[in-house]
């Protein structure tokens, strides 16, 4: 597997630059949102409703990407929406990663009863449709940022646990683990010092993938009106509105969709790129 991947010549640098660049841009937009957004994202004005983007006739200056049916500026809402998207991505992604990786490592390396318990929970979790599970949890926890983050962590830890468990099992069968035992290393030490570095590239790739997924989950929850309160702009909420008026004002759907699309793509490509770039074994 490694050899085959090593043979494929990929434009590693380009991939990292493009995905990293987009995410950096987004991060800057999120940080500086109040200063760079051309309009107030919440300001409604029926006189400016459904303005098309700047290159079409009937566009108005200041509404570069047009406006929605309530006259709110699409570009400003996208910029403000980046705040929520990135917070969810970073916090939920990291927490999910830490919990899932820890459980996966323990199950895969210690085996025995810890493995049986963790694997049973993974089985049960895998029997839930994740989107339905998320909606259900939000219904229980109530809408809001914390609820979204909790829901993502509760649902998606299995993604890490499953993959890392399998990798830890493979690594655990290697002789360098037996060698650490011969040297007298404790089991916990072997897990952290020998196994963890070997699964780390996978963890990194999964982590950035999970960040993209977190953004999507937030969008899906906004789409079914279960994210956070309606007065903060979210990409999912914009898409939901855009979906209903797609024939009258396509731009309300298209621009947040493109943003979401590139963000999710960048997160996953960033992870793959980092994995290939910084794995000494692959080079």
């Amino acid at each position, binding site marked *: 597997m490694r050899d085959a991947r090593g043979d494929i010549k990929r434009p590693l640098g380009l991939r990292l630059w493009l995905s990293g660049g987009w995410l950096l841009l987004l991060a800057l937009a999120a940080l500086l949102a109040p200063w760079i957004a051309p309009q107030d994202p919440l300001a409604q004005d029926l006189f400016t409703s459904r303005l098309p983007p700047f290159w079409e006739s009937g566009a108005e200056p200041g509404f570069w990407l047009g406006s929605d049916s309530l006259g709110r500026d699409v570009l400003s809402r996208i910029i403000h929406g980046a705040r929520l998207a990135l917070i969810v991505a970073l916090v939920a992604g990291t927490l999910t990663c830490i919990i899932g990786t820890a459980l996966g490592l323990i199950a895969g390396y210690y085996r025995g009863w810890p493995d049986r318990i963790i694997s049973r929970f993974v089985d049960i979790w895998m029997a839930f449709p994740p989107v339905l599970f998320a909606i*259900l949890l939000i219904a*229980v926890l109530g809408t809001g940022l914390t609820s979204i983050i909790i829901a993502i962590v509760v649902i998606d830890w299995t993604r890490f646990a499953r993959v890392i468990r399998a990798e830890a099992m493979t690594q655990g069968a290697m002789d360098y683990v037996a060698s650490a035992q011969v040297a007298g290393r404790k089991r916990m030490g072997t897990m952290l010092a020998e196994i963890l570095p070997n699964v780390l590239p996978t963890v990194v790739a999964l982590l950035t993938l999970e960040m993209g997924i977190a953004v999507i989950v937030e969008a899906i929850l906004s789409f*079914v009106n279960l994210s956070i309160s309606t007065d903060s702009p979210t990409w999912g909420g914009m898409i939901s509105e855009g979906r209903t008026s797609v024939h009258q004002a396509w731009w309300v759907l298209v621009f947040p969709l493109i943003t979401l699309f590139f963000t999710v793509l960048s997160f996953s490509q960033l992870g793959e790129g980092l994995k290939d770039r910084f794995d000494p074994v692959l080079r």
Partner: protein
Amino acid sequence: MTLLRSILMRLLSTAITLFGVAVIVFVVIRVVPGNPIAMMLPPGATEADIARLQAQYGFDKSIFGQFVIWLSGVLQGDFGTSISLRQPVSSLVLNRLPATLELSIVALLIAIAIGGTLALMGTLRRDSRAEGAIDISAGMALSIPDFLWGLVLILLFGVLWPVFHISGRISPALDIDFTTNFYLFEALLRLRLDVLGDLIGHMFMPALALAIPLSAIIAQLLKQSLKETMHLDYVTLSRTHGYGETHVITRDALPNAILPTLTLVGVQFTFLIGGTVIIERLFSYEGLGNMAIDAVINRDLPLIQGIVILFALIFTLVNFAVDMLYVVLNPRLRHA
């Protein structure tokens, strides 16, 4: 003997999993704030009315007591009564199930067709630019979830080039009375090509949206597995016998390379079925998933429970079927 034993073990494990799902969903939804009974009564209902209904739905008992009642009902095939729709959960759910099943299976077939073709093409042209292109596009396709693909498809085929229906399952104007809810299957059997065309026109986009990530996964895994198999000695031997490249890939490498792909595709197929929840919502397709979201919004506890359990049952059945298929295709296990 071993086969029978492993089947029994699997059934036992499935039962434990389903029980776990039931417990979790039962506990979780009973923590939902808000009184579902209060929502279904007209304003001005008396305390006594509420209490009467509470008793009728068993909400006056402890969670454990409710669970015992519910479970004994389930074991007799009774999943309770929907609060919002006031019909038995089992008939509601079974009416919607065919729509979701048809959508999932069509999506699976599309995914296998696209993914399999790409994998074979990539293997035939391995170590070339064409393979690189397949790798990169598959890598991107699978990192974008079905929800986004659905929106992209709506823009492409619903707005830019409106050839497909963007919502619903069937055009209401069509003159046909179905005896089952398997519309696609029935239209096919009754050779109603007009109806079939209309159904496919509705189903195409949601099914493709669900299929794209899975097809990318199939393309990647199967190609990987094929390439590894192509290095094995028996494939080399077959080449030296004078067989052409296409024959070697499809006849010699493929039957063996499918096995590792199969297990992973099983899990991925359950993810696809899970994806129908939001995709059905997006395309206003009248399946289980769409009903599930309404049930959550309406706090319809018995209905949520029934749907979640049904999904869990489908998932475990899919995994079971995949395992059986694996045994059938692998002579090493068949005779063990």
